[in-house]
């Protein structure tokens, strides 16, 4: 799973810590997500999408090698 979290986060000028607090996770989790090292739950993906003011999950999370 590839993410565009850092792109949208920079666009909104919010820090990793601020995003982490907004969605109720640790900053380490945001770092892992931005580095494409962790696949989030659907609920967390929704929360992040909303926090980054995007409408569709697909805009933030890109599923590679999809079926």
């Amino acid at each position: 799973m590839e993410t565009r979290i850092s792109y949208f986060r920079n666009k909104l000028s919010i820090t990793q810590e601020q995003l982490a607090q907004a969605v109720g996770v640790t900053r380490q989790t945001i770092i892992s997500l931005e580095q494409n090292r962790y696949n989030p739950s659907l609920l967390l993906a929704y929360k992040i999408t909303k926090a980054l003011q995007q409408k569709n999950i697909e805009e933030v999370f890109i599923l590679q090698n999809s079926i």
Partner: protein
Amino acid sequence: MIGKHEWFRRRKYTGWGFTPVTWQGWIYVAISILPLVLLTSFPPISQTRIVLIVIWALIVSCDFIDIMIHLPKDERDRIHEAIAERNALWVILAVLIVGAAYQTATGVMTQDISKIDPVILIAVVVGLVVKAVSNFYLDKKN
């Protein structure tokens, strides 16, 4: 409860439980240990003291459990903790089974069955029961 979860973080690399991250946490740990030190330092240990130690142990245990439950954990932390605990359990289980097998073998060879430690067997059986109950609960839940 007495202790606050904000004073601690979960131990990840140095065992189980939690470790203080603030001065309040360190003071809490010191104050938690102090009654035990005072109650056991000066002989003779009377029955009243034993009762006090038990009461103290119950209070501290309840507070420790409360802190552990309320330590903040996100989904990634939960997954990591579950995998780490599972790996630790597998190793513990392997050691217990090897130990039980060794004790059984030496017990049979020396015709002395008392060499088999019942605590090992009880631990394995209780573990099996807890696993079955957990899976049953989780299957019902989701």
